[in-house]
């Protein structure tokens, strides 16, 4: 491929058949850098080059990044058709031992493809869920859900009377529903997932207005055998809690559960190490044609102005890379994850002279799900919902123990 001086090449990868696949790379800083260095965006054909201002960072020994580096978006390139795509089976399992702490992989349990009825769980997709870990609930029984709903409703009304108004102005009647989601579990030993929903109806004209869903939260446990085997009787294990809606309702509902069942809610954060595992595992999953790009967001520390680097990879390129790294189907080791990330980092370094390994990975988004290190998750495909929940349950359990 001919190169023009001063132009960085569109990065290319070759797969086994020697056919070319181009990939998309984007580097978007949040702030524009010192004068003259305005990031230029270009989309469109592969031939469009950006001869915008781009000075490569001068490499020093062991730099993180040169503060004068300008940003530029590489042109997004089309993919040559006919590239072979090796597809493995729907590969989604977890590594042997504690996720993120175990170093060697062992034989995995068969990947969970038998899933919930997609319609029933459709409302869980494409919403941002905040993660919490919950210690086992004492004397919880799934037969008394209506009773719990009534008690929680009364508690919320009492809180409002006390003056802990959650919404100023509009006076709302809050209705609580508890329901069970029996399909969201890994095996029969797991407790069935439980959903709590708060819907509001304007108390001014109760006949006219409709019920609007204000807040929802659900407890679940997928393959939580490590925890449920070790707790005594009377305790129910539902270590993962996901909430969507106003933060104040989480506090109210959380305090009711803590008072009633003697449990403890704790915000679940995801460390960068666990995020790299998620990136590697979700990249390995087979997705359909128009899948969204795999995107990794990094935050650069120790700078006067905060800088975020977003690294987007064509999903099939990412999958091809992961397929060459992974040796045994159904088994993932820490070394393979490290190698996968190192390949991505060194590729980025070759083009931008920035060591991504010195930055902090804050967000991973693939076609399957997207996870943020503050403990925020978004499910994008119901096919892999159980698999992602299994990972999150493992994280929650390791935080509790």
């Amino acid at each position, binding site marked *: 491929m001919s190169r023009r001086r001063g132009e960085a090449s569109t990065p290319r990868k070759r797969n086994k058949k020697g056919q070319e696949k181009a990939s998309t790379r984007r580097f978007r800083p949040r702030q524009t850098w010192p004068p003259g260095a305005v990031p230029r965006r270009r989309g469109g054909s592969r031939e469009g080059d950006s001869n915008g201002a781009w000075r490569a960072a001068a490499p*020093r*020994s*062991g730099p*993180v990044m040169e503060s004068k580096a300008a940003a530029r978006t590489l042109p997004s390139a089309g993919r040559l058709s006919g590239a072979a795509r090796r597809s493995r089976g729907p590969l989604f399992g977890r590594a042997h031992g504690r996720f*993120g*702490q175990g*170093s060697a992989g062992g034989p995995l349990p068969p990947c969970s493809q038998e899933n919930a009825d997609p319609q029933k769980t459709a409302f869980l997709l494409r919403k941002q869920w905040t993660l919490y870990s919950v210690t086992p609930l004492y004397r919880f029984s799934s037969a008394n859900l209506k009773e719990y709903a009534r008690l929680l409703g009364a508690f919320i009304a009492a809180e409002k009377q006390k003056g802990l108004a959650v919404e100023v102005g509009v006076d709302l009647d809050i209705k609580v529903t508890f329901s069970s989601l029996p399909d969201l579990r890994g095996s029969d030993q797991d407790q069935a997932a439980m959903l709590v929903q708060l819907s509001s109806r304007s108390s001014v004209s109760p006949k006219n207005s409709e019920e609007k869903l204000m807040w929802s939260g659900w407890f679940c446990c997928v393959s939580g055998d490590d925890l449920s085997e070790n707790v005594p009787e009377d305790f129910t294990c539902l270590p993962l809690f996901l909430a969507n809606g106003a933060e104040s309702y989480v506090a109210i509902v959380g305090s009711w559960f803590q008072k009633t069942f003697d449990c403890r809610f704790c915000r679940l*954060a*995801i*460390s*960068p*190490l666990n995020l*790299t595992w998620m990136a590697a595992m979700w990249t390995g999953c087979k997705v359909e044609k128009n899948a969204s790009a795999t995107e990794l967001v990094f935050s650069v*520390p*120790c700078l006067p102005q905060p800088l975020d680097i977003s690294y987007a990879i064509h999903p099939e390129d990412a999958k091809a890379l992961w397929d060459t790294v992974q040796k045994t189907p159904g088994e993932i080791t*820490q070394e393979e994850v490290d190698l996968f*990330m190192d390949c991505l980092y060194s590729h980025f370094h070759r083009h931008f002279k920035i*060591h991504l*390994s*010195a*930055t*902090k*990975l804050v967000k991973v988004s693939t076609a399957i799900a997207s996870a943020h*290190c503050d403990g925020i998750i978004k499910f994008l495909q119901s096919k892999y919902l159980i698999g992602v929940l299994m990972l999150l349950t493992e994280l929650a359990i390791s935080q509790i123990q």
Partner: protein
Amino acid sequence: MAVVRPFDKLPALNSATVLLVGSDESLQQKLAEAILKEKKSFKISIHLATSLPLPSERDHLRPRIDLIAFMIDIKSKYSLKNVEASLAHVDASFFLGKVCFLVTGVGRVNYCSVQTNAVWKLGEVYCSPVLYCELELEGIRVATAQRLLRMLQICSGQIPGISALSFGSLIRNSADE
């Protein structure tokens, strides 16, 4: 000279030198200042480097290095890679008690990008003690400086009766228990 050797130069009277190798320069600076503030009975010189090998131009001006402390930040995988690459430039006889690994940033579990297993294995392979600390905090920084100063005293032979090797194996045995 490509490789740092422990005994290729003559020792100076009543003085010791420590070399801090790590990718985070500001943290190295802070630790060096904390070491210098400590009360000590001998002359100390602290050399800071981001990676090895050290440039050979000034090699004749450098004193004999008594202790090398490799600093690894658990929040940055890059620092681990940097240290691993630098370890190749250290002579094997240095690892008889004159090297230690300082792991910083351990206060915040949710920020870790490096597996603690990997660091522990590094300490095992190179037979050197691994000290965990959080250099961002003032108190721990002072405590770490005191520990390093003590180790430096032993490694430079200022304390009669204890050699660097015996001290190193003492630390490792007590860590195993």
